[in-house]
């Protein structure tokens, strides 16, 4: 059975996972605060780490991602869900520190964005899947399909369209490289 850690699990923990949250009024199995040190697990403890609506709250994204990388095994998956910065939900919660887009994790990719590694962190993971969700109206008009269909169109959307054809959520799946 895969070992899954659900970070910031809240009241609806992912089935079969170990839940971690800072708030005791949740379904958490482990109470820990992401901004106060380390995750209380050994290296390579998990096959999969899930963080839904978590990364936009943390004080230091790079330090947190390094910790996610440490507790996930080589080849394991990190699944993150976070609002796109053009969605209203990004600005609805007064504890959202960061407003992110589909390129926000390139620091961790081998080859960075333009073939050159970035030097902010030594930790590496590969983006194996990215799904962008748009608002209902734009989805109905086919824009969500286009944004997810081609990298080129996604880039064009981020640069030119996204303040009109606004985004909603991004679902990233990273593969841990060790």
């Amino acid at each position, binding site marked *: 059975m895969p070992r899954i850690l659900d970070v910031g699990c*809240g*009241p609806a923990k992912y089935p079969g996972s170990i839940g971690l949250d800072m*708030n*005791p*009024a*949740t379904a958490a199995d482990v109470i820990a605060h992401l901004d106060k040190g380390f995750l209380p697990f050994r290296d390579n403890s998990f096959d999969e780490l899930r963080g839904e609506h978590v990364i936009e709250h943390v004080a230091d994204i790079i330090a947190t991602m390094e910790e996610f990388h440490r507790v996930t095994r080589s080849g394991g998956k990190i699944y993150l869900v976070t609002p796109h910065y*053009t*969605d*209203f939900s990004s*600005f*609805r*919660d*007064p*504890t*959202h*520190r960061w*407003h992110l887009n589909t390129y926000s994790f390139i620091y961790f990719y081998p080859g960075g964005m333009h073939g050159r590694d970035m030097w902010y962190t030594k930790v590496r993971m590969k983006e194996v899947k990215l799904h962008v969700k748009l*608002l209902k*109206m734009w989805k109905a008009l086919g824009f969500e399909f286009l944004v997810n269909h081609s990298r080129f169109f996604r880039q064009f959307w981020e640069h030119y369209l996204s*303040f*009109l054809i*606004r985004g909603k959520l991004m679902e990233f799946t990273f593969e841990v490289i060790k």
Partner: protein
Amino acid sequence: MARILDIGCGRGKYPGAIGVDMSPASQADVLCDWTKTLPFGDSTFDGVRMIHIIEEVDDIFRMLAEAHRVAKNGAIVTIVTPHYTDHASYCSPAHRWHLSSFSFWFFSDKPAQYDYYAPANYREKRVRVELLRIWRALGFQFLVNRARWFRKFWEYYMSFVIRGKTVQWELEVVK
């Protein structure tokens, strides 16, 4: 006379209020780091004003908990802050938070697990959005403030074009 506290009063202190600020160049009556604790007893004030300060504090919920503590039951806490689509939200490098007209929506209908993050109890009495002059002249400000569903639609679909300016809340302290 109603006792009003003006937190971060600057040079435009609210008439008749007790002003708190960090800067001696302000009209403050009390100088302190008001982002941590307020040097007043519980249930002291009939009203608390936070005008263009909430976007700068470290911890918004801590600030609201302190305001709640020093305010009397039923007191009104007035908050004014830039809307996240206004250029003013990005003008100051001291602005940590970019907020929308629904940033305090949950106080009126708080799910149980939120008590952990935001222990103070408020009731959202009034939210008012100000838009830029052109949009106001075209009637959008009226519409946005008229119906909650329209405000929501505006936030989701229109606000990067019909851009906001400031948001004002009146939160009622519930003790």
